[in-house]
């Protein structure tokens, strides 16, 4: 008779997630599931709204990556207006995209994951957090918060409001960049570069420290999906889709993101409200794919900034003779490389005279009744797909977000970690095991407020349940 271990986060208001670990008759881990109970309905809510309102509305889905929704929505609007936006507008949008990456990645690495790595998975849970990190290395903790602040400040400067700004609109952006603000942002660059350097030094030490555990942290072959530039470089705002397999073979390239629905399907499972996107030609669940930093740094041929390119080459050596880095633990390293790229590229964009241009918006009316926007959000490729009537009123909307696209892989990661670390015979969930399972999920930095559109905190509820329904162990925190 099998047993079930459940880790169930409960939200303050609605929508919740939990982790269930299924044991077999021998008390070995049979399966593991990362459930997300999702409140669907956002797409429906947008029906009847005007196209021009959509960037402002969709950016309010999420408090962590609002700029990504803003940009992707505006790009869907560009598609419906059938316009090419001015050079300055594109560069400003690129700047905003990179600022979003920087602040999101900084939060993920310094605030959420570094305590595990620097203090250890088995350290006292009461202090295994940012406060413990402060006690251990105050300067490191402060640097992380300031790096995130740099990203946030760019978002604030460009949009005048940090969160939910409607600065990006179909056709371009609303306001040009003032020279004084450009200079202010450039003033941050030396500190930001230094801080990312600290992060990269730290992650390399972490790789050595956890050399024994890393191979069990979501180490499997999957497809990797993301945008690349016209000549195969790391892309974040535009480009075409590339799909690579777990052996490093590019199995599809130069795919038009506007036709995403031809390549990807969405499966559903009765135990989760979060959908399970998959690559259609491989069917479900074999069409499992990963998006986000690990995918992006793996699939690109090069990174256009020099320091990040050096790091990419080091990263690729981790793949051994496979040609692709398949271990989800290295999401963190890829995230750090992307932070470095973001800082370098922000500097390049700010030093480009075109960034101060004043031709920032193409004006047009509705020229198509359907449009798709696609960008690389911090957690992976993001699609907004709108149908409008001739007046620009939304008839139907579909948003495919990164956290959902990593859903199958997150489940696989939890299963692998659970199988390695949980001793079902003991029937106990230790803090160290719980934290390793959580850490496996954190590799992907899932944004549940985005994927579930839910609200509030998700405290953990952990249950060990036999197949007969008996609760063998229970942990809450």
């Amino acid at each position, binding site marked *: 008779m099998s047993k079930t271990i459940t880790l169930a986060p409960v939200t303050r*208001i609605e929508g919740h997630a939990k982790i269930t670990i299924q044991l077999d008759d021998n008390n070995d881990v049979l399966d593991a599931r990362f459930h997300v109970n999702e409140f669907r309905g956002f797409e429906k809510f947008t029906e009847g709204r005007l196209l021009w309102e959509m960037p402002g509305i969709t950016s309010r889905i999420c408090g962590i990556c609002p700029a990504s929704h803003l940009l992707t929505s505006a790009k869907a609007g560009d598609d419906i207006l059938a316009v090419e936006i001015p050079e300055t507008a594109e560069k400003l949008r690129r700047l905003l995209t990179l600022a979003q990456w920087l602040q999101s990645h900084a*939060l993920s690495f310094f605030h*959420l994951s570094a305590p595990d790595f620097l203090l250890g998975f088995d350290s006292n849970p009461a202090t295994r957090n940012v406060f413990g990190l402060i006690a251990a290395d105050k300067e490191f903790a402060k640097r992380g*918060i300031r790096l995130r*602040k740099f990203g946030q400040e760019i978002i604030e400067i460009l949009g005048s409001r940090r969160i939910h700004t409607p600065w990006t609109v179909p056709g371009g952006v609303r306001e040009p960049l003032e020279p004084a603000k450009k200079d202010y942002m450039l003033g941050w660059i030396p500190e930001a570069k230094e801080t990312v350097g600290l992060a990269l030094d730290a992650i390399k030490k972490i790789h050595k420290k956890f050399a024994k555990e890393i191979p069990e942290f979501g180490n499997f072959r999957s497809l990797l999906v993301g945008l690349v530039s016209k000549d195969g470089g790391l892309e974040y705002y535009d480009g075409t889709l590339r799909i690579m397999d777990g052996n490093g073979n590019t199995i599809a390239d130069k795919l038009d993101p506007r036709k995403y629905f031809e390549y990807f399907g969405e499966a559903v499972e009765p135990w989760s409200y979060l959908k399970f996107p998959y690559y259609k030609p491989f069917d479900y669940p074999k069409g499992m794919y990963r998006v986000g930093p690990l995918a992006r740094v793996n699939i690109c041929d090069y990174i256009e900034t020099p320091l990040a390119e050096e790091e990419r080459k080091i990263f690729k050596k981790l793949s051994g003779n496979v040609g692709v880095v398949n271990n989800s633990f290295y999401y963190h390293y890829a995230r750090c490389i992307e932070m470095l790229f973001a800082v370098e590229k922000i500097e390049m964009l700010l030093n480009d005279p075109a960034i101060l241009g004043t031709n920032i918006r193409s004006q047009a009316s509705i020229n198509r009744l359907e449009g798709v926007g696609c960008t690389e959000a911090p957690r992976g490729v993001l699609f907004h797909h709108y149908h409008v009537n001739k007046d620009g009123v939304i008839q139907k909307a579909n948003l495919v977000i990164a956290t959902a696209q990593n859903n199958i892989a997150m489940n696989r990661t939890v299963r692998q970690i659970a199988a390695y670390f949980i001793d079902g015979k003991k029937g106990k969930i230790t803090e160290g095991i719980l934290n390793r399972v*959580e850490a496996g999920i954190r590799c992907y930095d899932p944004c549940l407020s985005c994927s579930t559109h839910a*609200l509030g905190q998700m405290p953990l509820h952990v249950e060990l349940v036999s197949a007969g329904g008996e609760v063998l162990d229970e942990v809450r925190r």
Partner: protein
Amino acid sequence: MSKVLVIGYGNTLRGDDAAGVKAAELIAQRHPEFEYIYLHQLVPELIEKIGDYDIVFFIDAQKDITQPSVRLIAPSIEADQPRTHFISPESLLALSQQLYQRMPSNAYVIGIPASEFKFSEELSAQTTQGVTDCPAMVEQIILNH
């Protein structure tokens, strides 16, 4: 005169969850001399700012109350153990204290009753009343400061 920061936060697309933002906007109409921050959720970098003020108000929707509530808060790290994207006002105070050795003289959480969280830009009647009452509550606290 006390230097006052009002932080109103919540998801303005989720019905009553917008209460904190709406209340802060209402206070701003009556007190332009205060400073205001409107957010979807609290974020760590606020710690660089909150220590610069005598009084900080964190205004949020609260599910389990029927009347607006005020709570004087102290630094604490208890609320944030799971390490998600959520961070509490108490943790922000603790972070500010530990990293910058600065804190506001007083910090308050004002909870506004909230019950409807569907996708909507409308507030329920109870929450609307709570938002309306909020400026007077803030004024009373400042008067007693």
